[in-house]
């Protein structure tokens, strides 16, 4: 037994300080500044046409913001990205559960999943355009195919690797197979599922951009390719940075959800 268990409510400033001001954050900031400075120096020397320096990006950013092109492209991208990711998550988690839980199903489907996983999906985008046109569906399907396998394989692996000590304890107390699945295995495989979702969301962003670049008319990818057609490297970079930030934000969101849903995972001790 510990000597004493204390409970304390932290004030919001303390919480913010703890999470935002630490060595990792400082190093991140230093790296970011170093990157920007290097970019600026190189950009000024080789000329804006080849490499738009960060200082010139700000005006490009404001310009794209004022015309509404950036926001429109972002929303456009987000719609197919989120729809595709949601479909992939539902499908990947359910099929992953099935493949992990019913071993014969897993063994049967495994070669198909392995085959589908290595197919260069980007090469199939033109086919999707032929089938579905240049609309929302073709982009969404590209996103789904880009990220569904990570989620599916992680989920199946998680289910197969559930600690037998836990399932054995549950069985000893009389759990039936349904309870074993819903009350033990589904929770015990959560860390794997979230690992799959984290990888999946990054792949989904990639899939979205690749589809849009090939479509060349919509979303952030479309914005980038039309800027490139006009030799506006500054606008290209604004688009690229937006995509990078989108990736950081979305995988951050997945991690926030993971921490909220898996509070039992020991965080840190002081």
């Amino acid at each position, binding site marked *: 037994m510990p000597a004493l268990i204390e409970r304390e409510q932290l004030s919001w400033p303390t919480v913010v300080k703890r999470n935002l001001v630490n060595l990792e954050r400082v190093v991140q900031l230093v790296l970011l500044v170093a990157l920007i400075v290097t970019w600026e120096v190189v950009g000024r020397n080789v000329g804006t046409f080849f490499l738009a320096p960060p200082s010139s990006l700000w005006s490009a950013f404001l310009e794209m913001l004022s015309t509404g092109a950036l926001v429109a492209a972002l929303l456009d991208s987000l719609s197919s990205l989120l729809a595709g990711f949601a479909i992939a998550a539902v499908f990947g988690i359910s099929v992953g559960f099935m493949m992990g839980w019913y071993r014969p199903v897993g063994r049967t489907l495994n070669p198909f999943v392995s085959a589908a996983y290595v197919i260069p999906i980007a090469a199939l985008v033109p086919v999707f355009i032929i089938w579905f046109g240049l609309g929302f569906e073709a982009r969404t399907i590209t996103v789904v195919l880009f990220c569904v396998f990570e989620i599916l394989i992680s989920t199946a692996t998680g289910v197969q690797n559930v600690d037998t000590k836990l399932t054995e*304890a549950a069985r*000893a107390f009389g759990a039936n197979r349904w309870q074993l699945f819903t*009350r033990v295995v589904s929770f015990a495989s959560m860390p794997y599922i979230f690992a799959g979702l984290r990888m999946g969301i990054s792949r989904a962003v990639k899939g979205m951009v690749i589809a849009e670049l090939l479509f060349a008319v919509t979303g952030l990818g479309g914005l980038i390719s039309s800027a490139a057609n006009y030799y506006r490297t500054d606008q290209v970079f604004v688009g690229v940075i937006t995509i990078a930030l989108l990736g950081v934000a979305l995988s951050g969101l997945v991690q926030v959800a993971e921490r909220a849903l898996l509070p*039992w995972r020991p965080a840190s001790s002081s």
Partner: protein
Amino acid sequence: MIIKEQLIADAVTKISVQSGPEVRVSGLRKTYERTTGREVVRTHALVDVHLTIEREEFVSVIGPSGCGKTTVLKVIAGLLEPTGGTVEVAGQAVKGPGTDRGVVFQQPSLMPWKSVRDNVLLALEFAKIPRAERSRRADKYLALVELKGFEGHFPGELSGGMQQRVGLARALALEPRVLLMDEPFGALDAITRQQMQIELIRIWNQEKKAVLFVTHSIEEALLMSDRIVVMANGGVAHVVEVPLSRPRTSEALLNDPVARQLRTHLESLL
């Protein structure tokens, strides 16, 4: 006088309630089989095990690693299907796990996503105990193992000894006829181990049950048990009565001539 009367009264209730032993294991055999390619590997873990546990009797099973202690316990628990032979609990043939047996595992085997109290409640839910009764029992047995105040903690926030107390509370909460314990203190440090031995004896005095206690420590077996079953090579090699008066302490056992003789005897058997 009073003690004598009590003994007679006990004997009478024993006879009237039930005549046979609480657990009867006869001719138990267990063979593990594994096939790799053309080769079939069979491990004859239990050859011919006979064993009984009387009401309110504390029986230790002791023997070198790999002699089949865990296998016997798991078969009695209904977690493993025997290859041959029978297990009866209170005269009923064992067909699978049941609430007449409470199992405490070597590793605490608690669900890491459930609080201490919820772990006990979940086990009771698996055991199909009515909801209102579940929470009464959880409170009662968590208090019995002296975990009041820790109900809301996650297993990851507890020490090994405290986790094992939760495991014990969870098994006791079934209010089983038999308690099956597989080296429950094996993973604990010496000091915690001693505390837990004292705790278990205190609880056993309070809730007299038949106990099957697997250990590899002669000291522990002498301190706790009425009878010691010595296993070797998948069978019962010897059964040793422990005619030491209770309460026992490890210090007293060091100087007790009978205990010293028993220890030497057991050492020669192992």
